[in-house]
């Protein structure tokens, strides 16, 4: 089974995507100057995954910071997931935010309003 693992840096998040378990995780900071280049491997991997997805895919997004150029790329990722969901495969996006981080909660709600995939907003302790 295919896997995608990208180790995090101070400007880019850790990404783990395991086709076998159907779990995609994006964690850390996403503030690169060139987000398109950074997210390209993930978007391509999702393209491959969409031809033979698991019946259930769990997506865990736990970001501390993300810049606006990442926000477009994250939307692209969610749009790929939305397409998989529309084909009858279950997708859940778990959006983690720190207790007092209203901006991060709002950012999740913005995506929730745009993307037709079930979102779960999950509050974590600081």
């Amino acid at each position, binding site marked *: 089974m295919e896997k995608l693992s990208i180790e995090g840096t*101070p*400007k880019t998040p850790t990404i783990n995507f395991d086709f076998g378990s159907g779990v995609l995780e994006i964690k850390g900071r996403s*503030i690169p*100057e*060139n*987000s*398109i280049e950074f997210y390209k491997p993930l978007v391509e991997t999702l393209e491959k995954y969409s031809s033979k997805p698991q019946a259930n895919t769990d997506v865990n997004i736990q970001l501390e*910071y993300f*810049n*606006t*150029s*990442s*926000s*477009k*790329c994250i*939307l692209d990722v969610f749009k790929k997931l939305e397409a998989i969901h529309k084909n009858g495969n279950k997708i859940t996006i778990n959006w983690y935010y*720190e207790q*007092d*981080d*209203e*901006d991060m909660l*709002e950012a999740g709600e*913005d995506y929730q*309003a*745009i993307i037709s995939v079930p979102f779960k907003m999950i509050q974590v302790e*600081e």
Partner: protein
Amino acid sequence: MLSFKGDVTSELLTSILQIMESKLDNMQEEPKVKRKVYNVLVECLQNLYHHMDEIDQNDKVAEKGRAAIFMIGRVDNQYNIITGNYVKSDNVNPLKGRIDTINSLSKEELKEYYKTVLNNGEMSQKGGGGLGFIDIARKSGEKLAYNFLPVDDRYSFFSLNIKIAQN
């Protein structure tokens, strides 16, 4: 707290962000305020960075045009972030229009506008997608104060002053 003048490189941005993050930690700034300041810093510094490329490197006038300024300080429970860079005079009116639009919107309208631009907006090759100013306005919760100073017939100096309240 920190200021610089000069060419904006990726390495410089990384250093400034690291310095500012540890300064905010040392000042024991509230996590909520710290995150807002950090987010706005990222956006305005990356604005400067992406903007550098628009200035023609072989242009003699633009030699100084490649220099940007950046300042952050705190006065009376308010952070002030000031950026300044040269812009082509042709870009002044579109830029002014964009900021005026943002300043005319309420909090809720800004949220809707952000979603519209996020969902429909085109993305430039480097990933700047016209969301920067909207995001800065949302996170700071204040109007964006700006000024354009004509330099010659081709260039103007654009300055932006962002305020973030501590409470």
